[in-house]
């Protein structure tokens, strides 16, 4: 099969600006993008730099952007790509060292910042910790993370907010918060509550989409937002305010009313900053009706909210169970 690769090359050390280089290859049908890039390096252009190791999507070394989206080159079969040219770029949100090799230092720093190790309470048991199977099984997806950086590469929030902790570290944090042996969950959640924390996620699904291991970082971020609110740790945060405002308004009217929602979601000082926007909306006939539409039977929606909330369970923690003496 013939393939046309268009690779973004750069050598910042030599003060080179990025440029595109195209390679036309003939490769076997079963080739992955990584196979093709290695062929380029070995047979066409030995100056092409890339990272790779296992070639079987477990080491996480060969993440790069393929046709605009991050993926593992070794997991990308060329026969599955339908474009005439395959565009290959280094990962985003990270400085380029050379060609497809990026500097992962910022990535690791963010990961270390969340204390990515187990912090149990009390004496270390003589034998292993014993936990009920169903308190660990739900971590099945999140422990599959191979630290490839694909989610961080395509993270929209990180692209405008450098202090954003980022999807890999959030997924790891969730993994420990939900681990029944870890006792630092409150401190961990509080760290997620500050600047750069879970409330700075823009909910764009990019990390969920590009993750080659179905870790679903954004789903973990949303779960931590819920824990922050449920544990009463985020009461003064706009993130908690907006959740409450949204459900209160929809519970009352069945629909969202944007004016009330904004008024209840931000502080008074911030609200003043929206006066201009309100005025603009009013003069353009865009201000939502002052008395919002109410759906018939809106009370039923509130009742649904009340009934579903009563079914929710607390996180299972070994140290709390030991204190409370309840059976496993």
């Amino acid at each position: 099969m013939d393939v046309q690769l268009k690779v973004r090359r750069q050598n910042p050390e030599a003060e080179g600006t990025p440029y595109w280089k195209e390679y036309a290859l003939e490769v076997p049908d079963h080739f992955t993008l990584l196979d093709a890039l290695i062929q380029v390096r070995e047979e066409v252009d030995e100056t092409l730099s890339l990272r790779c190791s296992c070639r079987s999507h477990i080491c996480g070394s060969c993440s790069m952007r393929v046709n605009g989206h991050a993926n593992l080159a070794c997991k990308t079969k060329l026969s599955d790509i339908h474009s005439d040219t395959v565009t290959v770029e280094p990962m985003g949100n990270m400085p380029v060292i050379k060609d497809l090799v990026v500097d992962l230092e910022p990535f690791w720093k963010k990961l270390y910042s969340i204390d990515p190790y187990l912090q149990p309470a009390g004496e270390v048991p003589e034998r292993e910790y014993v936990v009920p199977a169903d308190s660990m099984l739900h971590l099945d997806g999140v422990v599959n993370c191979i630290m490839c950086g694909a989610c961080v590469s395509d993270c929209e929030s990180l692209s405008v907010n450098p202090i954003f902790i980022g999807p890999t570290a959030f997924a790891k944090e969730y993994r420990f918060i939900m681990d029944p042996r870890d006792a630092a969950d409150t401190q961990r959640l509080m760290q997620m509550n500050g600047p750069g924390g879970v409330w700075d996620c823009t909910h764009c699904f990019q990390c969920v989409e590009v993750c080659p291991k179905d870790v679903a970082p954004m789903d973990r971020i949303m779960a931590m937002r819920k824990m922050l609110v449920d544990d009463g740790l985020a009461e003064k945060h706009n993130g908690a305010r907006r959740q409450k405002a949204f459900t209160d308004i929809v519970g009352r009217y069945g629909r969202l009313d944007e004016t009330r929602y904004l008024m209840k979601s931000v502080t008074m000082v911030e609200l003043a900053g929206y006066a201009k926007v309100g005025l603009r909306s009013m003069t353009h006939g865009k201000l939502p009706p002052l008395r919002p539409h109410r759906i018939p039977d809106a009370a039923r929606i509130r009742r649904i909210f009340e009934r579903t909330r009563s079914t929710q369970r607390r996180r299972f923690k070994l140290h709390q169970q030991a204190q409370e003496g309840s059976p496993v």
Partner: protein
Amino acid sequence: MTTYAFYPGCVAKGGAPELYQSMVAVGEKLGFSLSELTGAACTGAGVISERDPLAGDVVNTRTFAMAEQLGHPIMTICSTCTGVMAQVASRVNRDEAYRREVNQYLTDEGLEYRGTTEVKHLLWVLVEDYGLDRLKELVVRPLAGVRLAPFYGCYIVRPSSAVDPLTAGREGYLEQVITALGADPVEEYRGKDKCCGFPLLETNKKSSLALTGKRLDEAREVSADALVTPCPLCHLNLDGQQPDTPSASTAPSMPILHLPQAIGLAIGIAPERLGLGRHIIDTKGFMAKLAVAG
């Protein structure tokens, strides 16, 4: 012609009334049969499910059950509504045991969802049900000479496990519709499937506006004359917040059209009926360019 259970969404009835107005006008002209689901609740836009995932699923399943009773597929005009519903459908349609659990909360209303309701955005309806050839036949005023960049909105393209644009071939629908209307669909626009920043507005306004500005700057880079979006929430930021984006004071303004407005212009509906005067970013310059080109 199929009748659709029409789900306009809160924003089309609130902060972006021009969307509802233009959809009704376009629907009449295209001969759509729309039966509005007036009793359906908000999808939650990802916020209700953040606070309580089960509540989000129940409220949307309630809407599916209402449409199922009517025997019609749902048509939406909002990427976010579409995506939230698609995510809920991917759970309750595929998992019968879970559907039973969710249905428990609906029995007191006499509703039970059997897992058969199809949810389609207007964009999908146009290409898959109505047909672009039929749409082209109605074009009386081709939007020739203007560059309309597509702006999908995250929820209508991701996560693919729920909306699956690739398998369904939905990846380039917006470009196809723009082409059918006679305009240039600015294929090289990088921002088309990226984030408008809207979900961050209350929690990190600076990042929110930075993302909005980035999408607008990307559109300016490729000399787009306007953006077309199937998502009114994106419109709230791209249009409503545009004057407050970082480059607004120095860069030219970028008009943002709702999908039905772009269609309406091409099929000869008067701009006033499409609510083009109800935008924060003036559309007069764009209309003038269209007139010159036409």
